[in-house]
């Protein structure tokens, strides 16, 4: 059995060795599965692709829930030229003209608007196909298209878009699809329409042309329209917030992206989705503003009327709820003044190319290129631009002086028949000339001389701190981008001159919103009189800054101001009645103050300087404003109107003053707004007779 034994030994040896080898393989499998080498781990990639889902953006509402900005889904049409029906023999696209024609009809778009673009792309694709050695006749649908079909939207490879629409951020890297070499693969996306109406979408769908696709996009719409555009702002093409509340409350509105991932094969085609691989997007929260769309609309209407009637370059309006500090309307109108010319700045050496002419009307509101593109992108001059309040500032200084008890209401001050020299030698003039005035009549007749003397009785720090406590010189933080804090002279530079100027509202710059808020001090009644609210542009359900009251002046001083300003408003009303008999009776009594200040020149352009002898103002051009609250017996609303640069023809007739230009606008806005709010008409007892004499400024 010698040979048999040899075969057996060999067989046993071979089977033994092979078995041992197989066991090693089993161990190797275990090692690979349980602890693969770090180098191998680097090459283990998840075979999944993820698509991020854009969240719905929260709507912006007005205080009554009216929609000012909303998002919706819309469909737009795009064509994949490689999928268009082709003639089997020639390989050319069949009936292209017929396709373009029927599509144009269905979309209600002229055929040449997209036809030419489509033809160009088809030609380009032909060129690329000729260069490329292999062109897949009918390649697999890409991941993007599949997911687009599945979820109802598609990614857009081209970036050009006019629409404000929700686009996905480009995470093509995550796609893991086939790498597209430039200029080799055919163009497969030609957008041929914007977002279409539903009927048109249905028509396009009914055509059922292969290669013609609909893609869903989220579209931001602004039903609030032009009156609120500057407050709401807008989004850019990539849904980036660019201005207004859209920008300042972006985080609240945005929501969270969702995500869907799916297992894909090596060409990127989806195979399946795991049950936990879909995270829906979380829609953004809604933002309710304090704006009342109806009040905003009527305020804008009245402001526009005021600007045009006064041939003004612009106008600004803030309507504020005096109890809560909520801004219920805020308008900013700019009008093109054809005859206005640029101001002739002097050269660096002081020489003038063109002399300053008293006949010329200069441009006072500088060109806002962004506003020309879209009103929602323009400067919001109610928070971004300041003005000198002029006489409308006097009530604040008067209240401070009064509450400090340095002057009695009946104490008479010598006002020198309209001209008086300060101890440091500055000459002060009054429009209305009196030999002397009681302290309370200083405010009634808006005497600069009286205010100067009042302010001389208190220290500079006292006045300056009071000005700051009214909220001037600091931002209101109502939640609009690029707000300015205004200008209050620093403590170091606050001279006697400053003390005098500030007492009648010069050498201080404020924003309309700051001014309206400060005026709430006088509009609040009872124990709240003299307190300052926090200005808000959003409804009370967002308790970000709950401070509603901050005492600034004594209630009695505030009540006094209200009493005196009732007469000032009555004077203004009397003037209105003189002009137009139909505007002689008002349901609501109001109190208010006018102001007229020369418009500051602002900073000289680079390399230029102020003309010699100019004190830094457009000498014949004014910011005429009126600030009022009503109804007097229980004020609900504060209204400030600034008429920027009323027409020069008004000045010789002394019609450029705030009480002539801005006053009527305030009067009408308050009347209509209070009516709209259902406020009971004022009783006779709260009406005040206008004092005799000309209206003070």
């Amino acid at each position: 059995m010698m040979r048999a034994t040899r075969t057996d030994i060999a067989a046993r040896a071979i089977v033994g060795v092979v078995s041992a080898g197989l066991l090693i393989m089993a161990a190797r499998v275990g090692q690979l599965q349980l602890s693969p080498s770090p180098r191998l781990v680097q090459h283990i990639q998840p075979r999944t692709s993820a698509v991020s889902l854009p969240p719905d953006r929260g709507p912006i509402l007005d205080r009554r829930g009216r929609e000012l900005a909303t998002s919706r889904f819309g469909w737009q049409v795009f064509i994949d030229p490689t999928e268009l029906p082709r003639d089997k023999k020639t390989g050319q696209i069949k009936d292209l003209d017929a396709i373009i024609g029927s599509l144009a009809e269905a979309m209600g778009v002229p055929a040449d608007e997209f036809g030419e673009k489509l033809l160009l792309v088809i030609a380009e694709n032909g060129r690329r196909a000729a260069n490329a050695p292999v062109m897949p006749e009918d390649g697999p649908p890409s991941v993007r298209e599949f997911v687009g079909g599945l979820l109802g939207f598609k990614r857009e490879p081209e970036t050009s878009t006019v629409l404000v629409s929700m686009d996905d951020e480009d995470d093509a890297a995550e796609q893991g699809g086939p790498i597209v070499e430039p200029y080799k693969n055919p163009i497969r996306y030609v957008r041929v329409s914007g977002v279409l109406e539903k009927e048109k979408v249905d028509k396009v769908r009914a055509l059922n042309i292969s290669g013609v696709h609909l893609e869903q996009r989220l579209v931001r719409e602004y039903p609030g329209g032009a009156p609120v555009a500057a407050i709401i702002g807008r989004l850019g093409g990539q849904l980036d917030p660019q201005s207004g509340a859209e920008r300042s409350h972006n985080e609240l509105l945005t929501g969270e992206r969702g995500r869907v991932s799916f297992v894909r094969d090596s060409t990127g085609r989806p195979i399946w989705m795991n049950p936990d691989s879909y995270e829906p997007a979380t829609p953004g929260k809604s933002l309710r503003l304090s704006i009342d769309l109806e009040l905003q609309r009527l305020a804008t209407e009245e402001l526009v009327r005021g600007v045009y009637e006064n041939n003004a370059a612009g106008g600004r309006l803030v309507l504020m709820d005096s109890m809560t500090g909520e801004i219920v309307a805020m308008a900013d109108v700019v009008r093109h003044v054809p005859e206005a010319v640029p101001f002739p700045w002097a050269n660096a050496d002081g020489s003038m190319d063109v002399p300053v002419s008293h006949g010329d009307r200069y441009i006072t509101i500088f060109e806002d290129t962004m506003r020309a593109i879209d009103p929602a992108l323009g400067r919001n001059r109610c928070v971004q631009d300041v003005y000198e309040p002029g006489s409308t500032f006097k009530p604040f200084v008067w209240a401070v002086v009064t509450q400090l008890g340095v002057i009695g209401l009946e104490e008479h001050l010598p006002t020198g028949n309209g001209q008086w020299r300060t101890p440091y030698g500055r000459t002060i003039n009054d429009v209305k000339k009196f030999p002397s005035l009681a302290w309370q009549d200083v405010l009634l007749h808006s005497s600069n001389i009286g205010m100067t003397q009042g302010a001389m009785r208190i220290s500079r720090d006292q006045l300056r701190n009071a000005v700051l406590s009214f909220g001037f010189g600091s931002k209101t933080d109502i939640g609009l981008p690029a707000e300015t804090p205004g200008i209050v002279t620093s403590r170091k530079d606050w001279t006697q001159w400053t003390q005098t100027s500030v007492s009648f509202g010069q050498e201080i710059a404020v924003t309309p919103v700051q001014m309206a808020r400060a005026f709430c001090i006088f509009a609040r009644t009872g124990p709240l009189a003299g307190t300052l609210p926090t200005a808000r542009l959003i409804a009370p359900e967002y308790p970000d800054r709950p401070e509603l009251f901050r005492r600034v002046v004594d209630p009695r001083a505030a009540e006094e101001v209200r009493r005196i300003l009732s007469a000032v408003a009555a004077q203004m009303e009397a003037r209105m009645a003189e002009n137009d008999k139909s505007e002689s009776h008002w349901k609501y009594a109001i109190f208010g103050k006018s102001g007229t200040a020369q418009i500051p020149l602002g900073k000289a352009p680079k390399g230029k300087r102020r003309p010699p002898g100019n004190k830094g103002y457009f000498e014949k051009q004014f910011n005429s404003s009126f600030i009022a609250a009503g109804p007097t017996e229980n004020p609900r609303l504060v209204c400030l109107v600034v008429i920027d640069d009323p027409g020069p023809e008004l000045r010789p007739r002394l019609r450029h003053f705030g009480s002539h230009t801005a006053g009527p606008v305030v009067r009408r806005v308050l009347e209509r707004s209070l009516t709209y709010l259902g406020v009971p008409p004022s009783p006779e007892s709260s009406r005040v007779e206008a004092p005799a004499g000309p209206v003070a400024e």
Partner: protein
Amino acid sequence: MIRTGHVVFLCALGLLTLGVVMVGSAGMEVKPVSPAAGAASGARVAGPGSVGEAVAQVVLSKPGLYMALAVLAMCSMAMLPLDRWFAGMRAVGVGGARSGRGGIGLAALGVGTLVLVGIVATAYVPGLSHTVNNSRRWIAVPGLSGLTIQPSEFAKWGLIVVLAVYGAWRAVAMRKFWKGLVPGLLAVAAVGGVIAHQDLGTGVLVVCAGSAVLLAAGARWWQFALFIPAMAAGVVALIVANPYRLTRIETFFDPYVQPRGAGYHMIQSMVAVSGGEGTGRGLGFGLQKYGYLPEDTTDFLFAIICEELGIVGAVGVIGVFIVLLWSGLTIVRRQQAPVLKLFGLGVLTTIGLQALINLAVVTGLGPTKGIALPLVSSGGTGWILTAASIGLLIAMDPEVEEAAAEEAGEHGGGPLVEVEAAPAGAPVLAGT
């Protein structure tokens, strides 16, 4: 009473069943639906509606048909009365060569070698030749479109038969250098060389198995050892001659140099194996088969098994192979006829080595080679011929009651492994 042959049969059947199921799983693909379906166009998985449909789809598939043919071939071969045919050989024993029948062995070797070389060469005949992946290993059967045959498979098993006959009939001469070893080795070199020209892996396998048969037949170790450098030189020459083989060897030592190029296949195979993470992704849930791992239904099917069935699946497959080998060894040892013993040894060596090389390649322990996992990797010719060879092995199992009783205890573990490895075996059996 379960006989050793039954164990071998069940092992083979289990491996084939697993093969059909896994080839079906690895062959899954996603078919895109026509884009004309409208705006919401996309791809959908065209899959079966129910479990029954899925089973029917697998059973009625091409691999299902091949498996039926393979089982048929195995059963037919197993029923051959080999014992009776070769009963005389037992008595003749050592005296075979002296009684003048050594000439038969030499003649058989010569004629057989020529025939086998001719068979392999058919892959080069224009009109028959069928090229896949730039290699000419297949011939297309005229008249049957789509049916291809791998002639080297025939040569692989044919050489074992020829060498077994040669070894048995020239038993005495085998100890002699010129008269025994050299003619045998020449035959091995001729057939192996021609195969290696098409397919180095199979060539090396054939040479190894052939050498094993010659050694078992009585060739002297030291004489054989003289030829090892020559064989090695041949292999090296073949590697150097073809740049892609050289690249494969280089890649084997560091696949991560070109992870998207030469190293891609090996890395993806290891990624697939690794993807099982112990428990496996579950049958049908593998990811690498979706275009990431090339040759996933054939040479790299084991990677998909590891990915989908985890360590349990991998160890099950390996266990079944080990049981099959040891059961086969028992049969070979009990067999008395030298020609059958040598043939059985050749079959076991071929199957064992082929499995070992395949697993080494799949798990990244060997350079990438086109070698199938016997009875599992998709391949009609391979399945049928391997099953037929195993059928012959089963047929050798002598019907000696005591021997069966003696062995029964030794392989008690066989059926257990069987259950693990082929859970889906029942419906397939019913289908055949």
